[in-house]
């Protein structure tokens, strides 16, 4: 019916049925999360040694990423080839094989079926048919890409190379933080957010909100709309990066537009803002969205991956993995952990985002026929050298419409 209309080519109006329709969501899983895209799975540092594994998620499917003897990583679906059991129930561990508890079929970390109890029967009775082919009955194995400490996977054998998937510009930003130095795992935060997963992607692609919603940021100069900054994308428009730098706590005509600016706030213990300049160039914030599953955060000295795990059209889990570099000294680690107070479910700025997208879903889901107006910075989808734009959101939907056939 009329509720499902979306004029061809339009990306500055986003219809709200995209955020709650079960059929749209089903197609997103199929074409986006299980299609020719790289989804984030793990850090190399989480599974350093052969046999180390981590349970992760691609779309709604659980997968297991295991370090192999040769240092490569295998990713397989956590679903027994026999009768479907999600056999691995540990979050992480070390294993040379996986045994399904139901009938103890045994799999190598690569998914190869290694053993079927009583395959040949017992005392000449029963067993699998003579033509049963273990090779055809392993676990579903995913494509794997690794680059400088992160592991990605895809269900689609036709997925392009990771480098082609990102494109040269995005790769350059990627390599800035992931420069080949080994990472050190600091820990996890896990949220369940009652909102459509795309709202989180939009949030991170949206520099317009950063200087307005995040009073803490603005008040203490970590982000301001008048700082030199940039919004850049891959040619397809699916990935994006926001780049900016710390500012000062000054009043000018920009703060006039920021109603929540709190002039008189002082930190009692300012160690949380004890920032050191760490990477080449002037940028102090580089937030990268890798469509569709992950946000790579570098804000001052805090780094994390933020993993999107969709759970139906109105919900996703958001898993933060914080880390530093393996050679950080104790002070640097402490600094990163301290700054972690800004992020995650209780973060001085990130809590704002989780809350506001839940509030978005509330407003959106009761009006599927209405639509968002995404016109800040015009109606185009090009790069910008400022923060006053929603271009990266529009660009994502340009790509989205194409892949979704909408």
């Amino acid at each position, binding site marked *: 019916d009329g509720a499902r209309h979306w004029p061809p080519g339009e990306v500055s109006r986003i219809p709200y049925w995209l955020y709650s329709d079960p059929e749209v969501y089903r197609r997103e899983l199929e074409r986006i999360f299980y299609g020719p895209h790289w989804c984030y799975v793990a850090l190399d540092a989480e599974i350093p040694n052969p046999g180390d594994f981590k349970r992760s998620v691609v779309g709604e499917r659980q997968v297991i990423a295991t370090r192999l003897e040769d240092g490569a990583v295998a990713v397989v679906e956590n679903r027994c080839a026999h009768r479907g059991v999600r056999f691995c129930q540990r979050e992480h561990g070390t294993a040379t094989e996986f045994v399904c508890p139901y009938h103890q079929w045994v799999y190598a970390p690569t998914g190869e079926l290694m053993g079927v109890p009583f395959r040949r029967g017992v005392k000449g009775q029963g067993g699998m048919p003579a033509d049963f082919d273990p090779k055809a009955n392993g676990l579903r194995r995913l494509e794997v890409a690794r680059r400088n400490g992160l592991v990605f996977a895809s269900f689609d054998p036709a997925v392009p190379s990771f480098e082609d998937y990102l494109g040269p510009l995005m790769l350059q930003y990627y390599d800035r933080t992931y420069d080949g130095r080994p990472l050190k795992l600091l*820990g*996890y935060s896990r*949220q369940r957010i009652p909102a459509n997963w795309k709202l989180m992607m939009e949030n991170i692609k949206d520099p317009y909100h950063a200087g307005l919603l995040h009073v*803490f940021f603005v008040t203490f100069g970590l982000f301001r709309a008048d700082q030199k900054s940039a919004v850049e994308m891959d040619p397809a428009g699916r990935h994006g990066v926001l780049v900016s730098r710390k500012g000062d706590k000054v009043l000018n005509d920009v703060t006039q537009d920021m109603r929540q600016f709190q002039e008189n706030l002082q930190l009692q213990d300012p*160690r949380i803002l004890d920032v050191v300049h760490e990477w080449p160039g002037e940028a102090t914030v580089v937030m990268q969205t890798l469509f569709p599953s992950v946000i790579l955060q570098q804000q001052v000295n805090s780094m994390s991956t933020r993993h999107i795990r969709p759970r139906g059209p109105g919900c996703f889990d958001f898993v933060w993995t914080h880390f530093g570099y393996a050679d950080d000294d104790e002070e640097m680690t402490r600094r990163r952990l301290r700054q972690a107070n800004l992020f995650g479910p209780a973060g001085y700025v990130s809590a704002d985002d989780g*809350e506001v997208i*839940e509030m978005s879903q509330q407003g959106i889901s009761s009006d599927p026929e209405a639509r968002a107006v995404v016109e800040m910075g015009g109606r185009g989808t090009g790069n910008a050298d400022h923060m006053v734009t929603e271009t990266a959101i529009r660009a994502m939907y340009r790509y989205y419409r194409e892949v979704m056939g909408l």
Partner: protein
Amino acid sequence: MIATLTPELRFEVADLYADYAECLDEQRFADWPDFFTEDCVYKIIPRENFERGLPLCTVWAESRGMLKDRVTGITETMMYMPRTCRHIVSAPRIHALGADGSIGVRANYLVVQILADEPARVFQVGRYLDTLVRSDGVLRFREKLCVFDDVLIDNSLIYPV
């Protein structure tokens, strides 16, 4: 000087935990830092990180000043949906009396949270791993670890636990 485990001390500790919960549930956040010493450590940490030896905390404060900054965040800078919380805390268990007069206490807690137009939900369960000391004649937390069992936080953790 080592404290003595008198009935009075037990009652004082029990009252402290009740008052602490009330302070939070009644949203008198300005009073909250005063339950801590100046050089306190306060952590809210997932059991997952705690048991794996991973240092990341959901909230980590290294001083009463940082607690005050957290209150500023809650009351001045952070944007969040209105909510009420209710703590149900088991009887605090005094398990150690330190040579420095400190008192080791553990207690299980449950926090129920209520958002507008929503039924009450169990927001967090976990345990307090605390160290109390007497300062200015009053028992205060020198260290308070809130190790929560939940693997997922229901969107945001805004108020202290």
